[in-house]
């Protein structure tokens, strides 16, 4: 965190000392794929533990991510800050006239990062650039188990877990600029690194394990990110 802070400070100083620069505000959203293999294993193992048949109706599907950004454009490259918010989840479900069972897992991450892009091709108003983002992955997992039978709520338990890791996302984006507005598409692959598993409690002593108890589970946000972006560029003239 300290290192990230230092980088942010460096960027701000750089921006302030620059004689000619464009400020760029952007917002990107799109579909991300999420590995989450550890959590998926929970879903696969759960039916074996239940007395009745269930169905995995949702298993960490592709889902929208949102990424606002702020940066500076220099000649040939840009540097900035991004904030990535992504979420996905799963549900094991069963319901009939007698009641309902749900096992929901919702996971999301709050991920500030630093983005650097390099122009590869600039033709007319089109710009093709490679980018990479390096950031933090602060994940939150909420597990809710609910069982209602014969109009009696038998189980309604919620467990919250956290995990902190890092990510690196390389990719490309293709932007069409018109005046100070830019519209683009991008594609990348988020690579999570860091080894922290989901945990609860003050001292991270309670960890989330697979049902067989052998391996602790950590978030796995690895996956493709395909999105569309809108940019607004502001030119700042040095006095």
């Amino acid at each position, binding site marked *: 965190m300290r290192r990230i802070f230092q980088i942010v400070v460096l960027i701000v100083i750089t921006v302030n000392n620059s004689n000619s620069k464009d400020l760029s505000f952007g917002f990107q959203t799109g579909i991300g794929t999420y590995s989450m293999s550890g959590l998926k294993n929970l879903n696969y193992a759960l039916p074996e533990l239940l007395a009745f048949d269930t169905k995995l109706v949702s298993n960490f599907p592709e889902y929208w991510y949102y990424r606002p950004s*702020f940066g500076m454009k220099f000649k040939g490259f840009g540097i900035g800050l991004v904030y990535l*918010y992504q979420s996905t*989840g799963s549900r094991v479900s069963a319901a*009939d006239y*007698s009641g309902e069972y749900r096992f929901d897992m*919702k996971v999301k991450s709050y991920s500030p990062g630093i983005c650097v892009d390099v122009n590869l091709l600039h033709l007319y108003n089109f710009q093709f650039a490679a980018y990479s983002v390096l950031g933090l992955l602060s994940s939150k997992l909420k597990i809710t188990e609910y069982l209602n*039978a014969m109009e009696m709520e*038998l189980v309604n338990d919620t467990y919250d877990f956290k995990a902190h890791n890092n990510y690196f996302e390389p990719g490309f984006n293709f932007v069409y600029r018109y005046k100070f507005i830019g519209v683009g598409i991008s594609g990348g692959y988020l690579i999570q690194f860091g080894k922290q598993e989901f945990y609860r409690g003050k001292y991270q002593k309670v960890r989330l394990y697979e049902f067989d108890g052998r391996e602790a589970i950590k978030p796995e946000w690895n996956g493709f990110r395909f999105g569309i972006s809108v940019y607004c560029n502001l030119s700042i003239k040095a006095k």
Partner: protein
Amino acid sequence: MYVDNIKIELILPVLVAFIFHSCEYEPTEVYQRQANKYVAPPEIQIVELNLNNDTIYLYSDMAVNFRFISTPQEIKAIIFYIDSIKQKTVYSDSGIFDLPYNDLESGTHTLLIEIYTASGTGSIADHIGMEAFIFSKTWTIIVAKQFSYTMESAVYNGFLKLSWNECVASNFEEYILYRCDESGAQTEIKRLTASEFIDSSYVGEGGGYAVEASLQNGKILEWGNIELPDCIPDMLYYITETNQSIVKWQKNKFYKAIDSYVITQYVSYGRIHDKTESINGPADTVHNIINALFGDNVKVILRVIPKWNNLLYESSQYYMFKSEFSFIQGYSFLCNNENIDYRIYQVKDDEFVYVSNQDSIIRYSVSKKQVTGSLGYVAPECPTGFSMLRASPSGKYLTAYVNCDEDVILISSDNFDDYSVRNLKHLTDVYYFPAIPISDNGIGIINNRWNKLYIYDFNSDVLLAQFNGKMGLRISSNSDYIFLRDDSLRLVQFKDSTLINIWSESQNITNPFYEFDPFDTNRAVFWDGLSFSVRQCDNFSIIYEFSLPDYDVLDINYYNQEILTYSEGHLYIRSLSDGSLLKDIPVNFEPDNDAEACFLIDNTIVSAKGIIYFLN
């Protein structure tokens, strides 16, 4: 867009960030399972359930073994309630539930069993046991904490029949029947489920039986016991007037269990014992006494031989199968435990008197074979008996000592209510109680310790005369004559307060017999050991005489004119007129001994042993 717009441009992304946080993934799809809400209830079959009746009697802990089959829905759980309080839940279709005897109060309780089966709908609730068919049944439990046990016996068709209360405990298994000997040791003889048992081996030997109730949980309950009285029949002794004697017993109640009786007869006299043994059939009730003479001590032992194996019938315990009876051969005129003073006096032709148990005088008729009178004299301050009983020659009067002060009583033998008591210690001196011979007219002779003879009129309580140096022995019926001893044995006439010597014998004759005829006041008899003579009293001349060389003259029956004599091993009845032998009764005792003295009364010989021999 320029710097002025920067604020607006910065706010927008922040707002966007807040907005997309609300766009978190939310799973919404629901899987609707297939479940058939309407299914028929299952059929429950009882494979095993040891609660056979609606009412369960509990005498101890009881294990309820259960197993049910439910089709098509399976059994999920079985719940046991006692008095509506859940006791146990079994998540199975079979198992064991313990009815806790010790935890339950005595009295009535309720057992409820609920069987929960799957509903069969396949629903979530069905799978997690929230939906079920319930079958239930209730039993009444009666906890018996204080129960009495009894055992009864009866005779059934010649056998012993034992019965006891039925054990209604629901986990009852069987009864265990024990035979108990007199020490209390128990031996198992039978295991059975019926509450009665016929013991074909029991012959009435007594002892006991005990029964225990065995429960299926291994608990043993003492269920009853009985102590049977000894029913080996008691014997009774009978003797006919022909002196044929038998012992007789009642037919044994358990006659069908009897193989035979072994009768062992012991006849003893002195140190001689004669043993005979005979075997009688189970139907016999009589044993003839053989080889026993008048006065012999006889013991008869009756031993019952069981027909079938009797656990107690072994040599060390033969006593349980025995009945013993001891008696003296002869007709007993005594009651049970009655002691007799050895002196017997004839008071009528067929009656005699004796002192019984030292506290009463009994008059007994040999012809009637019954007591015809009794006198029990109760002293004012101390119960004392009669002592030194004497009778007048005909038996009209009796004298004896009574009271703590040993006063002299005069009794009319015809009427025991007619008696008088007087203190004659001024004549006899204190602590000296000589027998007082008395005449049939009430004149007695009293000897004191200083060899002084008093002639005392009991009618008027007047001292008629006194003489020194003489000891009166007999006084005639009319009190005219007295046998006395001074330097010789003398016959004297008492006349005008003086004694006139009639006859004397200075020779020391061994064991002479002399007495006055009670009916002829001028007659006396005299036996010197060889010759027996009947004499005139006034001059002691011989009226007639015959040789009588017997060992002893015991008694004379003046009614029948017979003499009872004894020679070794024989009692002889002889004619008083000529001494001819009328009857010879062999005996093994010695009647010249006071305790076994014999007297001739009516047509019987009466012994101080308490027995009568019939002469006809």
